[in-house]
């Protein structure tokens, strides 16, 4: 069975003054259609590098990326990208920023229809009243709302988000997570989101992919998040399962991320080293 998106034996090598540096090595991951995957790992391990390769913004050194049966070779509007800094073009208003993409993707639609598309997505993210302001007049949170609207308005096949809420305060972050979930549920876009926030990963994702530390980073472990949707933040926080999964992720980041998984054993089967913790984790629903 073919997958929606398949990353196979992905390598990324950067030339550096000290010689080539292999940042990502043998990275394998298969996406189901409509799946939301969170990618976590320590800062600098290569999460953004993986995401950029999927976006087509970085070349693949070795291995391949196949999206709906086609090899990814360049960037394109079928993959909406939400950057960490929203990267709105400061000389355009929020509306014009969204329109830049809409004009590009819906070039057969009439001018009026295109305006309506942009306005629709801007109001979905709560920017109906501020859409004709420049980014400089918008708060960080509002800018990121616009970044999300811009990505969704392209009606892409999938979404790529690189720590989109990393620079926001907690309250704004939670608001925007809900905005994102709302939009995502509307049309079940396949999504890959880089984050270093374990709670964010648990709240949003269907699966959390844990990356080992670089260089030569790869998939260390994958955790299936079984919570039904639509999810409710408060109910999650009352669920003991939530804390077990949370512990599992944190344990990975603290202890296990430093080693590449042994090649012969599938990552999911890698047991925790310590015997006490071992029994604890064996009881978890790990895929």
């Amino acid at each position: 069975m073919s997958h929606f998106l398949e990353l196979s034996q992905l390598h990324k090598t950067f030339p550096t003054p000290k010689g080539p540096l292999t940042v990502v090595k043998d990275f394998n991951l298969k996406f189901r259609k409509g799946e939301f995957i969170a990618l976590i790992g320590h800062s600098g391990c290569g999460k953004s590098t993986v995401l950029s390769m999927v976006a087509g913004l970085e070349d693949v050194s070795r291995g391949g990326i196949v999206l709906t049966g086609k090899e990814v070779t360049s960037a394109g509007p079928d993959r909406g990208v939400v950057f960490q800094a929203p990267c709105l073009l400061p000389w355009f208003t929020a509306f014009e920023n969204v329109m830049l993409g809409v004009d590009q993707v819906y070039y057969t639609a009439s001018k009026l229809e295109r305006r309506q598309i942009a306005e629709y997505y801007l109001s979905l993210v709560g920017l109906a009243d501020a859409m004709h302001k420049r980014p400089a007049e918008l708060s960080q949170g509002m800018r990121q709302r616009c970044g999300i609207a811009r990505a969704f308005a392209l009606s892409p096949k999938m979404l790529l988000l690189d720590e989109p809420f990393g620079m926001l305060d907690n309250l704004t972050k939670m608001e925007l997570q809900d905005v994102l979930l709302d939009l995502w549920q509307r049309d079940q876009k396949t999504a890959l989101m880089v984050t270093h926030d374990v709670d964010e990963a648990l709240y949003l994702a269907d699966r959390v992919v844990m990356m080992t530390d670089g260089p030569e980073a790869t998939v260390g472990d994958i955790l299936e998040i079984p919570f039904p949707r639509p999810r409710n933040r408060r109910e999650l926080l009352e669920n003991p399962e939530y804390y077990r999964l949370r512990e599992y992720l944190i344990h990975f980041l603290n202890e296990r991320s430093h080693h590449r998984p042994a090649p012969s054993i599938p990552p999911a089967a890698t047991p925790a080293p310590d015997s006490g913790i071992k029994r604890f984790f064996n009881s978890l629903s790990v895929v």
Partner: protein
Amino acid sequence: MNSKFQNAALSTALALIGVGLFFLLWLALNRFAPDLPTPTSTWQGARIYIVEPFAYRGEQDQGLLSLTSKSLILVAKGYFIALLIGAPIGFCLGLSKNFTRTFDPIVQVLRPVSPLAWFPLGMVLFLGTGGQALEYGALFTIAVCAMWPTVLNTAVGVRAIPQDYLNVGRVLRLSKTKMLFKIMVPATLPYMFTGFRLSLGIAWLVIVAVEMLTGKVGIGQFIQDAYMNANYGNIIVGILTIGIVGYILDRLMSVVEARFKTA
């Protein structure tokens, strides 16, 4: 609010003290250089040009602002040629490593050449145009001398375009033209305007030399005339006029520049 007012008052007061010191220095110099006119005699000699700034008493005998406007028109023409040529060259330098490798040495060699050296070449270039050679030669000189800051600042600006902005364009698969005019040019504008401002300064600097060489009527010619007629006070008046006009031009460009910086 109050401290803002105090600050402004202090600035004005200090500026006035500066002007006062300037006149003291002038008076002191009068003791060493007997041919240097005093402030009073300068004022008396130049009064007619200042109090009737737009008077036209003949081609060689006009009010200061009338002369200045003639110079400004010539500067404006040369300056726009400089921008029209300089900005695209700057873009090419910023965009292409190979273009830079090819042309940067030439740019660096031509950049420090004085307008006095360019002008004869300009004349030669346009000799075929007959009566117009003087005008074209002048424009050529202004444009060639003034375009370098625009070239270099534009190139720096293009190289400084944040990769993120370019990525936005790549994700959207913008056409080359859209990429240029919707992303690259707006992103470079703040740098370009720094270049434009510096270029304008040079264009205004060059005008005096050009008018002295061509004998075209204007504020530079006014000084040349004053020198020939041993009317030394007018030299000083000419210098002050050039300085003040240059300052005003620079301020105006700064305002425009600042507007683009915040945008």
